[in-house]
């Protein structure tokens, strides 16, 4: 009984506020004459036509997501590889640090016009833009993580002949993984922003392109559906990231809790 009540309460807590907000939105906009704020009922009704009964899912959403994944994965590979190299060598770190400080401080969206020059307005440009934005948080967090590898663990690995690729994975990367994952999370949210911006700035398809087209043609209801879809995409990707984090860092959360004396 008690468990059932707790579950009920948890469900209520999770759904109450969203339900209230949506109802408010629905009711307050029901008779809306405002040009910018069409009734929620109209927006939801339009989702079907605009996204589901058209080729937009495959022609716009899919390319966006593929570019995001491509750019993100590339950034992960580059960021972790460089991060491990730089983090492992004090000299290399001293050599690179000022340049990295400068490069990561450049707001990534300004690279859209720069990369457009080099790579045109095709997929290559967009993937490059995403890579150039995602790579910094991943790289810098990896460097921090690799620097912080416990000295006793390093000696343990040496004693027991753990070296080469096994050392890289079992010692360095696993040990830095909490920081690496933090970098991935930051990188992903920047990646989504860049995916949208690169499409808004110059593109012929994509989610960002569709939304900006709707706005330019004053198709406000359609634009709203696009905004909702983009929000949903952001939420979904963040949820996937969290699931991944729970799995990959299971040990870390447990360890931290154990260190805190099991409180909370």
């Amino acid at each position, binding site marked *: 009984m008690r468990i059932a009540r707790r579950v009920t309460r948890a469900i209520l*807590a*999770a*759904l*109450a*506020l*969203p339900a209230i*907000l949506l109802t408010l939105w629905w009711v307050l906009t029901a008779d809306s004459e405002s040009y*910018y704020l069409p009734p929620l009922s109209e927006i939801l009704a339009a989702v079907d036509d605009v996204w589901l009964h058209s080729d937009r899912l495959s022609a716009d959403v899919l390319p966006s997501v593929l570019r995001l994944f491509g750019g993100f994965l590339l950034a992960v590979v580059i960021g972790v590889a460089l991060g491990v190299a730089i983090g492992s060598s004090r*000299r290399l770190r*001293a*050599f*690179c*640090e*000022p*340049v990295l*400080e*400068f*490069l*990561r*401080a*450049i*707001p*990534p*969206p*300004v*690279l*859209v*016009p*720069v990369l*457009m*020059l*080099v790579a045109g307005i095709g997929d290559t440009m967009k993937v490059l833009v995403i890579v150039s934005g995602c790579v910094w948080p991943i790289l810098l967090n990896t460097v921090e993580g690799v620097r912080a590898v416990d000295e006793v663990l390093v000696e343990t690995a040496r004693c027991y002949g753990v070296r080469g690729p096994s050392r890289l994975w079992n010692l360095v990367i696993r040990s830095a993984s909490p920081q690496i994952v933090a970098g991935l999370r930051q990188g992903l*949210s*920047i990646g*989504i*922003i860049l995916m*949208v*911006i690169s499409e*808004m*700035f110059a593109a012929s398809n994509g989610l*960002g392109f569709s*939304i*900006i087209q*709707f*706005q330019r043609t004053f198709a*406000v209801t359609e*634009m709203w559906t*696009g*905004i909702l879809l*983009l*929000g949903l995409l*952001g*939420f979904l*990707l*963040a949820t996937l990231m969290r699931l991944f984090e729970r799995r990959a860092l299971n040990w870390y959360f447990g360890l931290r809790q154990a260190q805190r004396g099991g*409180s*909370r």
Partner: protein
Amino acid sequence: MTSTLTAPARASRAGAASRAARGTTLLGVLGFATFLALLEVVPRSGLVSPDYLPPLSRIGVALAELAGEAGFWTAIVDTVQGWFLGLAIAVAAGIAAGFVIGTIPVLREFTASTIEFLRPIPSVALIPLAVLVFGSELRSVLLLVIYAAFWQVLLQVLYGVQDVDPVAQETARTFGLHRWARIRHVTWPTALPYVLTGVRLAAAVALILAITAELIIGAPGLGNEIGVAQSGGAVARMYALVIVTGLLGVAVNVLARRLERWLLSWHSSLRREVA
């Protein structure tokens, strides 16, 4: 084994440390010089066409020209204004909301799902809405900056409030401290480092969004200048502007970190005096 080290040994360690620090600085300067040299040599050697990446010297000339234009300085002021206003509002709102939600368990329980849903929504999704409602002016920039920066602050404040030691909280209660006194003397000091982390993160995100808004919406500022330079084919000028945004970013990071360190040290020294 450090306990065995005698005074000269410790002195030699300090000496080695300062020498190492000097070596680090030297390597850093060398690294930056290499980076600059590459920016000059790569386009000159034809490895990358100078049409895409002009040699550093030409970017330098463009930068000098920019510095002589009143419009450039106005653009910087515009960008900084949008950044600062948006950040200030987001920080104030984030701290207020964070403390209210964080210190009242029921609120925390019932807002968690909504926060988790709204936070990852990319603020750039609001661009078309901002354009329609506000056009290409400061308010558009502010909308994006505030939305993006607010969550950074709010989340950190929530972490901070959650991190309060239950024992300290209990102690305060047994000493009969009221809710306000508890927030002021127990919750706030614990949460402060988190708040400052939130401000630091928000400052960087706010700059990104301010410049993005200018670039995409066309609100006045550095981002807009970059867009204009790009569409006008003024490549060197565009790179010069990109470098300026980078310097601005470095300045924001350095300032935020300074502020954080200064406030924290001031805070802890204050606490020590009280104790």
